[in-house]
Structure formats: structure tokens, C-alpha cells
């Protein structure tokens, strides 16, 4: 079994935290993993992505082939669309619906929404609002992971929740609780 995931967003939105949690769960479950990250110049408010590959078999390439990603997980709707050529036939897009506008030529929001909703399998929520309304404003990225957890398959939501506990353990009980709550919010949405 394999799952190829593209994580997308804007520098600073916390996609690498999502990658860290999935990575920890994969390591604990003995699932093979390769995860290519972007460091350096592009982190300064530019588009960032990470190719995350999970498999019970040997993984060769650090990069995902076009047309073969099982899930695109994105913190931003336009960034989700950026990687469509990589999406597999049965692939799912899980994204925040809230545009992050740090450029002057951001596309028309309605047109963007229309293009996103026209996809066969898409799950889109205002994760920042959800996080705020539920008093976990700093954990929007973990809400998104909760939404994606339904589709990851090779790792169960329970395994991911255990990883959240391990990854945030050093930051104290309350941070762990906040992130578990955020995860369940996304999972049950």
C-alpha cells in the first residue's frame, strides 16, 4: 500500500508541522516514508510545498510523479490548485477555503472557488475560523490534518492523534490538548 501526499501552503503557515506529525506516525507504525521539504529563500512568504510519500514497500523517488498524488493537503485554496497536475485520478483535495492574499494580483475569489468546487473530490473548510471559534486559534493546520486523516488510510486517525501527543509533548499539556481538539474538529467536520 502507498499514499503520496502533497502538502501546500504559504511560508509560515505550518505545513512542516503537519509533515512532522505524519512522519512521526509513520515511523512509529513502521511505514516507510520520504518527505521532501523546501527550505531557504522560498520560506519568506512565498509558496511552499512538501512531497510526502508513505508506503509499505521501498520508496525510491523523493518526489511524486505527475498524475499520481493521492491527496493534496493545502493551507490555502490557490496553493491547492497549483499542484493539480500532480493529482491522481482518484485523488482528493483537502484545503482551507480561506485565501491568503500577500500578492497584489491574487485571482478572483469566486472564480477560484468555482474551479476548486468543480473538482470531483474536494473537502474545503474555513479552518482558521473553525479554529478561532473553538478557542484553538493557533492550530488551524492541525484542523486541516484532521480533515485529511479520513483519507490517509495507511495511518489511522488514532495513530495520528498519538503522534500529536508525542510531537507537542515538549510544549506542555495545554498545547497537546489544544491540538488534539483541533484534530478532532477537522476529523468530525
Amino acid at each position, binding site marked *: 500500500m502507498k499514499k503520496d501526499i502533497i502538502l501546500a501552503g504559504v511560508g509560515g503557515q505550518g505545513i512542516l508541522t503537519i509533515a512532522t506529525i505524519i512522519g512521526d506516525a509513520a515511523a512509529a507504525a513502521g511505514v516507510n516514508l520520504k518527505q521532501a*521539504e523546501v527550505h*531557504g529563500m522560498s520560506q519568506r512568504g512565498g509558496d511552499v510545498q512538501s512531497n510526502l510519500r508513505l508506503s509499505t514497500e521501498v520508496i525510491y523517488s523523493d518526489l511524486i*510523479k505527475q498524475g499520481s498524488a493521492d491527496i493534496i493537503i493545502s493551507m490555502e485554496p490557490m496553493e491547492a490548485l497549483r499542484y493539480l497536475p500532480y493529482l491522481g485520478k482518484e485523488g482528493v483535495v483537502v484545503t482551507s477555503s480561506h485565501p491568503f492574499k500577500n500578492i497584489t494580483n491574487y485571482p478572483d475569489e469566486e472564480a477560484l472557488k468555482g474551479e476548486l468546487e468543480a473538482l470531483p473530490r474536494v473537502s474545503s473548510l474555513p479552518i482558521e475560523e473553525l479554529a478561532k471559534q473553538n478557542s484553538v486559534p493557533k492550530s488551524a493546520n492541525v484542523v486541516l490534518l484532521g480533515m485529511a486523516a479520513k483519507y490517509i488510510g495507511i495511518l489511522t486517525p488514532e495513530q495520528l492523534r498519538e503522534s500529536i501527543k508525542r510531537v507537542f509533548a515538549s510544549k506542555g499539556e495545554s498545547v497537546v490538548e489544544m491540538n488534539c481538539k483541533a484534530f478532532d474538529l477537522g476529523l468530525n467536520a
Partner: protein
Amino acid sequence: MKKELLLGDEAIALGAVHAGISGVYAYPGTPSTEITEFIQVHAPEVRSRWCTNEKTAMEAALGMSYAGKRALVCMKHVGMNVAADAFVNSGITGVNGGLVVLAADDPSMHSSQNEQDSRFYGKFAMIPILEPSTQQEAYDMMPYAFALSEELKLPVLMRVVTRLAHSRAGVEVTTPLPQNALNPDSERTHWVLLPGNARRQYASLVEKQPQLLASAENSPYIHHHSAEGAKLGVVACGIAYNYVMENEPAKRGISVLKVSQYPLPKQAIKALAAECDALLVAEDGQPMAEEQIKAMLGADYAVKGRLTGDLPRMGELTPDNVGAALGVEQTQNFAAAENVVPRPPALCQGCGHRDVYDALNKVAAEYADARIFGDIGCYTLGALPPFRAIDSCVDMGASITMAKGAADAGVHPAIAVIGDSTFTHSGMTGLLDAINDNSNITVIISDNLTTAMTGGQDSAGTNKFEAICKGLGVEPEHLHVVTPLPKNMEEITRIIRQEIEYKGVSVIIPRRECIQTLNRKLRQKRAQQ
């Protein structure tokens, strides 16, 4: 066996620590920075303070090797240009303790100004080159590289690319080796490269070449996968091996030779050529192996690769472009979206460089012929909208020296913008040139107290810039320190105007801490409370 999830850079770092290094010498540069950072955090017994530039790093490592201990030098590919003098000559002196030079190349220029291939430097210096395909190999190769270095008495170059350096995978870890004991070399003729000695040393380097080739031919990192009745054979170098294997060559009747050590293993390549009708050379970076293999097999044998257009001439390899070269059909289920525009990086909100460019743009607008020479760092982003403030960015330190040359030619005002870390890396010597020639330039050292672009490493000159400038001969009345904040705009623009009008070298130091390192400190403080 214990398996750890490590970035390629971290696997290299841990491999080097477990190989018993006593020091790591480096200047930060994407994608190599995390190697030294990992050692700084996880191996306090290893000497690991950041160096001023790649040349000082290379020389310090050579000194440690001279003293009998193992040393690692890390840099990004363009750092090899800075270290080249010491690097090439370390092939002539040879080494005592094991010495490994790690060059992290950046094909596709994700964070660089070119995509030069460091393997050429290894060939140029006539030393062994290793090129891992996986994080596990990167780890395993470190003890191997140090042993090879001590066996051949030569430095070893290890070359990686961004996609290995910045990709994470599980790595099995082995038992660490102890550090070498202090054992300075007493063979002076090896180290004193007067022409008489240098000729002998060079002859000895030339004599070692068959040994280097034999080591590559018998390397544990060369594998030949024969497919029955194969028409096509692939020479897959370093990370390219992964992209080839992703396309299931065995199923397609394609033979593969994995090459992760150089000089190129001639026998193995000839054996592959003999069982196939044509070869494809898959290598990330420039077509170095392709050219050599073409020469090795003669004009009649079909060798395909980047030079023949079967693979793209530039940019990094991917499983897709390698697949295309292997005749694998490409699938695309969804066309590129219509409502997507580029999102380039930008200077952070609240960054002091922003105020520096606001001020510079204001003053420069008053001079029709103003030219602003930029340099390498976050502030290079001043080239993009909304600032569009700089006219050049070439290499570390070039802002000052290019401004000098342009001023010599008659450009006025000629303004240089350079960051604090770049200034100590390669700007100080150029400033001395300008002072000695009384060049009519205005130098802005935009000091944010850190090496920001690579994530906030210590900057070699912090708290020393006024002293350095005065020591080099900048006149005190033409040396100014300002705080780049909107409220100080009037003062800053006045000083810039005044110093442009001064016929000689002036230095203005806008100083305010990087917003990223400042926020990090505040977060840490809050966490402790």
C-alpha cells in the same frame, strides 16, 4: 536496529559524528546549512562554530587534518568557488587525518544564483567523489569517506543535491567510532608547496589516480542491475538512481548501473554498454558523466542524456522527466489550474531591510544616474516589487567591488548594499580596495545581527562593524550608524544624501535585529515564563 527519521543533511551530520570527526567547518548556505546546525545541537564534543567564509572553513579543516584528526567542511555549491584555492591545493598537499568536503548543489536554483555541478571540482582536484542516492547512503558513506581519505591520503568530496539534503527518510544508525588522537604530520615536504615540493606532490597525486579508479570500480556504492535482453542501459548517478528506479526499469527490460563514486568506473560502464545497444546517462546537474562516457565509448556508440535533449539541458531531474527519457507514458489527470499565479518570496513585514530600501529609493529618485549594487542575502529580495531597488546581485561581496569599478568608470552615485554576514564573508577586502583608491562610493551595511536568509545563524562581525570599517580606513566622519525605522526616515535620507555628495568612501550601517530572530527569542522567553 534503531531507525531515525532524518533529513539528508542530518544523516550526513550524524554519519560524520559517528565517523569520529573532531571538527566541522562551514559557512551557512542553502541547502547545506542543516548539517552544521545538527552537529552544533547534537554533538557538543565536536568543534562547530560557524566560519567567516568557505575558504576559512576549508583551511581550518585542512589544519585539523594536518594535526591528525578527522574534519568535515560543508558548503553550498557556490561556496566551492570561494574555497577553491584551498580545496584544489589540499589535493596537492594530501591529508593526514581524514578530510571530507561536502558540497550541496542546487539544480533548478531553488535558492541560488547558478546550478554549477561540484563534481567538476572533484575531478579538477583529482580526488575521489562520492554521491549518495539516499539518506541511508549519505549516513553510511561518511565513515567510508573518512576511511578512504586516510587510506589514499587525499581529501574526499561528497556531493549532494537539494532534493537529498532537504528530504527526510528513515536511517539505520550504527556504532559511533572514537575521534582520532592528536598526531601532527611531521613530513614538511608534503605541506610546504614550494615549486620543488609541489612538483613532487603533484606527481604523487597523478600516480594515485589508478588507485582512485580501482576504488571506484570496487566501490560498495556501484551496482549493476542487468535486465535480460536489454536494449537500453542507464548510468544512474547519485539521486538520479531514485528517479530511474521509480520508473520500474526491470519491468521495461532496461539495465541500470548505479554510480555513486567517481572517477567513473570504466569497466562497469563498458560492461553495461556491451550488454545494451545504447546508454542513457541520468545525472542531476551538468552533463559531466555524459561527456566522459561519450568519450569512453567512441562516436559510434549511442550515448543519450542532457546533451542530446533526451533529458532537459538544465534544471533538476524529476521522476517525470527521467520517465519520459525511458519511454514511460506520462499521466496527467487534471490540467494546470487557471486561477493560479506565482507567489514569490518577499521581505518579512517589519524587516529593517524594508526601511533601508524605502530610504534608498527616496534618495536615488533624486539622481537620474544612481545605481545600486546589491549582494547575496534576504535583502536581494529588494530587487522584486514593491522596491525594485537594486541593479545587480552576482556573488558574495560583489556589491562593494562592483560599485567601486562602476564609480571608477564614472557612475555617480554608486551605492553598494550588503548584509552584515556577507560583508565579513567577502566584503571587507573589497572595501579596503575602495579606501586605498579613494573611490567615490557609498556603502550601506544593512546589519540585522544575524545570517538571516539561511535561518538565523551567528554573524561573524556582530558588534565589530564600526571597528572593522575604521580599521580598514573609513574616515570616522563618513561612518554612520542609524536605526532603520519609518520614524527615522528623515535622518536616514539626509545622511545618505550627504554621503553621496562626499567624494570618497562612506559607510552607513542601518542596524536593527532581524524580525525572525527577534520573534523567536520572544517566543522562547514567553515559553520559559
